[in-house]
């Protein structure tokens, strides 16, 4: 490998997808324009759908009505709730294992060198490719999905935590030594807090992967869940239901990301404030 691990770590940090589009100054005209585009697009869809009577493109109102009937009813409990709790458990396992192992691996240089090739390999493997193995070994129950999500989401969390712990500024570690902190205390009071932004970044990537994995694992092997629902709707030509499912996934994806960013800003506000001051 001719690439230094530090450069790789810097690159990984740069590789994190941005949270949203950059903020620009809000003007009344701008806001009107952005709302107008959405309204015009929806109207155009409605008109075209009504004129063409295509089975594939139901009108916006029809999709909205279907969405209302489907998701504000028992369907939500039967299809969306299982997806959410599988994802939740899988993600929690990934987060706990990823952060714990990651910080330890990053803190002890030798551990990092030992595990680096394995980590690089699993990071590069498309997580969804392991779903067939999960189905073979565990079947198509909840355990399979939870484990597949945990396995897929753990690598970005682990690698980012390891990077965060590995690249703690030396002064902080030396200060800890001056104060006579033990190895464990240093880990808990210096390394983990300093690695927090990186850990959070890894957890955000992990969340996105967990979301993809729950949808895909339900599409491939399941008897319920949103992924199953959407694919089944397409196969049975329940087209408005399919669109409704896609919209629900969009809302869930958006909500998860928003909640995560909100919690992150609450938990890590002190950190960003501090680094902004010293910069």
């Amino acid at each position: 490998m001719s690439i230094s691990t530090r450069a790789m770590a810097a690159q990984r940090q740069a590789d994190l997808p941005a949270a949203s589009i950059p903020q620009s100054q809000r003007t009344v005209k701008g806001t009107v324009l952005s709302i107008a585009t959405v309204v015009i697009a929806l109207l155009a869809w409605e008109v075209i759908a009504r004129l063409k009577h295509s089975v594939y493109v139901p009108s916006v109102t029809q999709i909205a009505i279907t969405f209302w009937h489907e998701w504000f009813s028992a369907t939500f409990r039967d299809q969306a709730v299982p997806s959410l709790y599988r994802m939740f458990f899988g993600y929690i396992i990934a987060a706990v294992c990823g952060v714990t192992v990651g910080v330890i691996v990053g803190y002890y240089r030798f551990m990092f060198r030992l595990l680096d090739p394995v980590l690089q390999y699993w990071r590069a493997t498309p997580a969804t490719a392991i779903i067939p193995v999960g189905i073979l070994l565990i079947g198509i129950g909840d355990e399979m999905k939870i484990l597949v999500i945990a396995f897929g989401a753990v690598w970005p969390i682990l690698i980012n935590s390891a990077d965060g712990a590995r690249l703690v500024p030396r002064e902080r570690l030396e200060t800890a030594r001056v104060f006579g902190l033990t190895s464990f205390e240093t880990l808990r009071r210096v390394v983990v807090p300093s690695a927090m932004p990186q850990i959070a970044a890894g957890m955000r990537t992990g969340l996105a992967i967990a979301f993809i994995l729950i949808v895909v694992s339900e599409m491939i092997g399941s008897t319920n869940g949103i992924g199953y629902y959407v694919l089944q709707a397409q196969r049975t030509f329940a087209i408005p239901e399919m669109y409704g499912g896609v919209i629900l996934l969009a809302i869930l994806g958006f909500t998860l990301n928003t909640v995560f960013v909100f919690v992150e800003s609450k938990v890590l506000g002190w950190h960003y404030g501090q680094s902004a001051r010293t910069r």
Partner: protein
Amino acid sequence: MARQKLLRVNVPGIAFVIGCIVVFEITARLGWLTSYVPPPSIIFVALGQGLINGEISSQIGATLHAYFIGLALATCLAVTLGILMGTYQPVQDAFKMVVEFMRPVPSVAMIPLAILFLGLGVQMRVAVITYAAFWPLLISTLYGVRGIDPQALDVARNFGITGAEALWRVTLPSALTGIMTGFRVSATIALVVTVTTELIAGNSGIGFYISQMEQANRLPPMYAAIILTGILGFLLNAMFFQLDRRIVFWTPAAQDKPA
């Protein structure tokens, strides 16, 4: 410098990998694992055979074909829209809310929609890959355009470079760092989506091969193909990493010499 670094191999790391494979081999041979997990030696033989007789290697071609077309399409579209949005405020205003609505839709949720319109062929996969790779590129192009030194644009204007020429000669090169960052994120996502789409509803490609082998209960080739996706991901990643350093050679990350 680079050559020395190349020679410095991570001995403990590689030893650990080999150790794991050996332990795995022994436990599998002793029958401590389920019959669903063949020993690594059999998997590697299957991988070698598949690569030589073309059973697996032909699928790599199909996968990379869809992958590169999708990624290239996404790059062209996202960079163009990103530069226009970043430069002209009305364009940004017009598309902003649409982007915020569309972006959170997980790309895999688009698979049923794409099947409906495009069937199970390559076009369907390319469409989903393009969709998935589009968003990170768009956002980072926007950030790249935002970060342009205003003086550069002023200087260009003094030399009479305006409009499309300024976009091409000043904005695009300045935004290149941002674009490349987005490109690598997109490249990773695109591979995941390529394999996933093939797995769910493909008719060729490595993902398709994996699901075929699973259904045929031919496990060694299935595991071989899964291992191959990881190798492919690793190689593509390394390739784009180097490409990035060559293209935007002036950034600090690219100049960070191996320590």
